[in-house]
């Protein structure tokens, strides 16, 4: 149907101003589509990175065994006395599991940790804190301590402690000062403040302290094993599948971050739905624009269509000419809109550089190919009605116009 293509092109180039206007209209629709894709995608990325970017994406925690209820053969109830409230469940064999988990393609980092509660004291001032023991060298594996550091170093040597800025302010601490850290087990250590961080999350900055894994072993009386394994992924959305895979691989109870994050997921879904609506409206605008322009064009060209039919053009040929026009308008407008969209998004910071106060536009989520493809499909669909109407033109009536 080369000849049909030639005629379609001729009709488009015959009235350049009208075609340019039509293509511009489509391009604006595509631009909105791309802008919305980048904004909604970037916003979701921003929200996720701000909420779950610094937490474990898959967590394996040691399960605390239920206290045994012992019943003797004669039916007397014997009570098993739990040795203290502070008995800590541990994960053993983490040296075996860690390399296996690290080998999973989606896994970015694994952090064996010992966690517990404690008190941080400086002179007479005491604050309740959450203590996390980290393996030296993996300090920034989950929470980017290095990135949030406002003073000192993020390296945890033995006898070092890293704490949040709010806590440091509360206790009037600075790098190099010595503090006393007492665990809930009653064991005390006297570490030196090695670094102060500020995440912007009040709770974390006020109550979290990080020590090395050996220090945590001393504090919580755990000569071996850890209390939890935190795993960070390259793709947040792969958490469910990766957790399932880890469970299958290790038999451990790996929990993805999405468990218990239903409200966040609902909010993100609602935001995505809003994005779909807005993009659909942009597409509908394109379809209506192309359909109305082509309807007008077919009406204006009725005498010519009549002549073509009289000269032996089949109805299918007429349909092809006008559908091809629609497709070309869609393609031109799609490419123009996608190019404009890309150029307009270039000045925005990349997804890894989102900062509070800036519009989180993600240029990589512009859906350029999808926008062009949907526009071409939409334009083709929009042109079918005018094309069919053109093909039904009665040559006698049309020529007589």
């Amino acid at each position, binding site marked *: *149907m*080369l*000849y*049909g293509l*030639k005629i379609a092109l*001729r*009709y488009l180039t*015959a009235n350049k101003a009208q075609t340019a206007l039509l293509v511009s209209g489509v391009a604006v629709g595509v631009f909105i589509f791309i802008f919305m894709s980048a904004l909604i995608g970037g916003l979701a990325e921003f929200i996720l990175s701000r909420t779950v970017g610094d937490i474990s994406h898959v967590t394996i925690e040691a399960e605390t065994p239920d206290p045994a209820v012992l019943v003797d053969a004669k039916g007397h109830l014997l009570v098993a006395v739990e040795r203290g409230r502070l008995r800590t469940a541990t994960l053993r064999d983490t040296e075996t599991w860690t390399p296996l988990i690290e080998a999973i393609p989606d896994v970015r980092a694994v952090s064996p940790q010992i966690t517990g509660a404690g008190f941080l004291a400086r002179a007479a001032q005491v604050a309740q804190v959450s203590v996390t023991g980290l393996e030296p060298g993996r300090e920034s594996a989950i929470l980017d301590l290095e990135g949030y550091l406002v003073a000192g170093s993020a390296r945890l040597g033995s006898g070092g402690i890293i704490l949040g800025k709010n806590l440091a302010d509360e206790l009037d601490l600075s790098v190099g000062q010595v503090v006393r850290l007492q665990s809930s087990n009653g064991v005390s250590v006297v570490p030196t403040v090695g670094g102060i961080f500020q995440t912007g999350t009040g709770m974390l900055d006020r109550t979290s302290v990080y020590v090395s894994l050996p220090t945590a072993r001393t504090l919580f009386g755990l000569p071996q094993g850890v209390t939890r394994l935190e795993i960070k992924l390259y793709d947040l959305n792969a958490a469910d599948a990766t957790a399932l895979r880890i469970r299958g691989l290790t038999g451990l109870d790996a929990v993805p971050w999405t468990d218990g994050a239903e409200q966040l997921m609902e909010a993100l879904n609602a935001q995505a739905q809003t994005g779909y609506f807005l993009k659909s409206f942009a597409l509908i605008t394109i379809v209506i624009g192309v359909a109305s322009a082509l309807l007008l064009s077919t009406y204006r060209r009725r*005498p*010519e269509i009549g*002549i*073509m*039919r*009289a*000269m*032996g*053009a*089949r*109805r299918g*040929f007429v349909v092809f000419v006008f559908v091809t026009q629609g497709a070309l308008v869609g393609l031109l407008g799609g490419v123009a809109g996608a190019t404009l969209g890309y150029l307009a998004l270039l000045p925005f910071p990349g997804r890894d550089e989102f900062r509070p106060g800036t519009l989180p536009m993600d240029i990589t989520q512009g859906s350029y190919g999808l926008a062009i493809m949907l526009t071409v499909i939409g334009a083709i669909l929009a042109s079918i009605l005018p094309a069919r109407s053109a093909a039904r033109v009665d*040559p*006698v009536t049309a*020529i007589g116009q």
Partner: protein
Amino acid sequence: MSTLLDVRDLVKTFGEGETATHVLRGLSLTLDTGELAALLGPSGSGKSTLLTILGTLMKPTSGRYRMLGQDLVAADDAALTEFRNRHIGFVFQFHNLLPDFTALENVIFPTAVREGRETSAARRRGRELLVRMGLEDRVDFATTKLSGGQKQRVAVARALMNTPQLVLADEPTGNLDRASARQVMELISEINRDEVTTFLISTHDEKIAACCRRQIAVADGLVTG
């Protein structure tokens, strides 16, 4: 000469009931191959309707129409389109050229639309026809840049492009000055003589009719002479 087309008891009625208009009332007509015939009659006599039906652009209400042995009343739209493209050429009063195309592109349209592309053979024939019409220096001109007479000659060339057996011309000179009209009629006579193409020309102009070897008078939807 062999019979090219045969029309029997052709009836064409527009509308229904009290508003029905009977344009053709049982018209019968035979045309032989190579005829140059004029269709004469006052306005409203049914000339244009007859040409439209003979051109397969409209179906009769009843009656028989056979051309080249084919029953054109029973044929469907696709078959009629194909038949029209191969065997019938049209020359309209107002040339009806495609305005966004050149003279040559207009002439080769009937072949290109059938073959799906503009072949070099079609271009060659189109050019030859335009030369024959005296338009060798207007081949690549946009039709909007041509005079009325030139446009009508392009229309004649287009009608002849697929070497049709029948050319139907509805007032082909009605919109032309005397010199252009004479030029167009001379071309039609020449092609009729050289290529044995049958022409049926609807006209009010007795001088044009006199150029034809046969005159067919139509009145009130019937052939009267």
